[in-house]
């Protein structure tokens, strides 16, 4: 397994660098930002390294979604729960029989709205929602809180309105990124996230609303990237 780390590091980063280059070549928002200000890792205009290494606070993108669509066209809609299905399966025990309450992944067969939570929980239940939403759910029901990177504690899934679900705590207790779909990079503004597989709207090096502290490390058990304190 010794070389596995090298493979994930290089493959993941190579994909990220490719997404940066393609975004600079085809997406108006990044064209403008990185041409004039610059960026790092990779530098796209020699000598221009930008104010925050090219990272973009989420607020700077609001109202600019049409400029995140590549020239060839595409969607300008974001899905605030993008990636939920994948990450939830990695971070919680979910079977086809599990009744998910609250944020139900699109293809999951059994779901309930938060308001219709049974008072006496029976069967295989799992509540998924923000801490405020979960406050009203009966105590016996297992739960997965959806937290923003800024309010990250020791459990749950990381969500951002723009980027969707970025990762979550797995059985090892570490904050796993949704590898290899989500890339994270340390910048002067904090962690900046990139959706490597979402073509449009293109989200590259976005610092979530409320910020995201931490550094990118590797889980000793799963050997994939995690956010460490």
């Amino acid at each position, binding site marked *: 397994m010794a070389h596995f780390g090298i493979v994930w590091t290089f493959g993941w980063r190579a994909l990220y660098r490719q997404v940066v280059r393609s975004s600079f070549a085809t997406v108006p928002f990044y064209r403008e930002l990185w041409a004039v200000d610059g960026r790092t890792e990779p530098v796209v*205009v020699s000598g221009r390294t930008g104010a925050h290494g090219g990272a973009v606070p989420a607020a700077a993108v609001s109202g*600019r979604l049409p*400029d995140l669509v590549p*020239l060839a066209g595409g969607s300008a809609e974001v899905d605030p729960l993008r990636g939920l299905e994948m990450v939830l399966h990695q971070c919680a025990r979910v079977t086809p029989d599990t009744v998910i309450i609250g944020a139900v992944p699109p293809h999951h067969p059994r779901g309930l709205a938060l308001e219709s939570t049974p008072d006496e929980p029976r069967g295989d239940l799992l509540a998924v929602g923000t801490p405020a939403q979960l406050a009203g759910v009966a105590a016996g029901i297992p739960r997965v809180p959806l937290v923003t990177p800024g309010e990250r504690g020791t459990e749950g899934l990381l969500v951002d309105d723009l980027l969707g679900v970025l990762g979550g705590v797995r059985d090892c207790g570490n904050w796993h990124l949704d590898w290899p779909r989500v890339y994270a990079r340390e910048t002067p503004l904090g962690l900046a996230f990139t959706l490597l597989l979402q073509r449009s709207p293109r989200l590259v090096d976005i610092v979530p609303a409320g910020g995201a502290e931490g550094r990118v490390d590797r889980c000793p058990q799963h050997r994939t990237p995690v956010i460490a304190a």
Partner: protein
Amino acid sequence: MRADIFDPRTDPEPPYWRELRVTAGLRADWAWEVLAAQAWGARTVQLITVLFDGTTPKAVVNAAWLGAPLHRFSFAAAGSRPWVGAVHVRGPGSGAVPGWWLADDLPITVLTEAYARAMRRELGPGCLALVLRQVTEEQAAQAGRLRVVRPTERIWRFPVHAWSDPEAWLMTLSRSRRSNLRGIFRRVRENEDLEIRIETGTTTLDEVRVIEAMRWNDDKYGGKLIPRVRILSGYLRALVAQPDVHSTSYIDRQSGELIAFGTALDHPTVPIVRSWTQRPAEQGGAKYLYFYHLAKQVDWAIAGGKQWVELGKGKAQEKQSLGAVPADQAAMAVPIRPW
């Protein structure tokens, strides 16, 4: 002739540029930071060339290096250049004005000879032809035997020098257009919900909102095969910040929404009315604002003692009914000798 050739994306502004712009009467779209923003947002490499006689600049040319492979869906890559193609000379950011200036004593053959040679040296043997836009018949006749000339869409201009005051202009129009315009002036005057904001050299324009408004027009004119490249907000920001650019915003006071927007680039004798964009009628747009806007440009030009106002291509009927006159234009292609 010595030639300086620049890629405004990465080359700094030459020290003589400001003075040269004044001498050559090059409008705000030739300001270096505007050229840089325009070049970053283009699908082809944009080159600025200055030709010298000794140490005196005698010619300035803006051109796109149009070649294979042409990428429909990406901006021009920094550092990579097509290996075969043609140099396309046009005004930066607008095809409605020529993309060159020549000192008084120079014939247009300077472009087909000295400039063409400089381009071939710079771009290599794959630089096969020179295409000049907005050429007059007279200029085309000077350009030697090996040339292809094709008429292009006419451009329109107001002969402001012929009008002593706005009333004199109105009197040259048809009766129906005149009374229609007077009606429009009254409508605008009495419309308390309409705010008209004219700003010169502004750094506070909400350019994102304007760009969004421009998409109303892009969607209308953009083809499926060759999409209109969306104008970068950085370009608009750099342009409207120039001290000789006037931006007019038409805003609905009730909703705060932008209904229409236009820019004019000033010039000592021939200003240009450049972009115009307005909300479609079904979204609360008002067609009469276009007439109002042009009428105000006439007022402004007469007051400023201008000779002409350039209006560019399109909307021929509307422009003609307001007293604009057409000018025939041609595109001329000249092969570049490989030696």
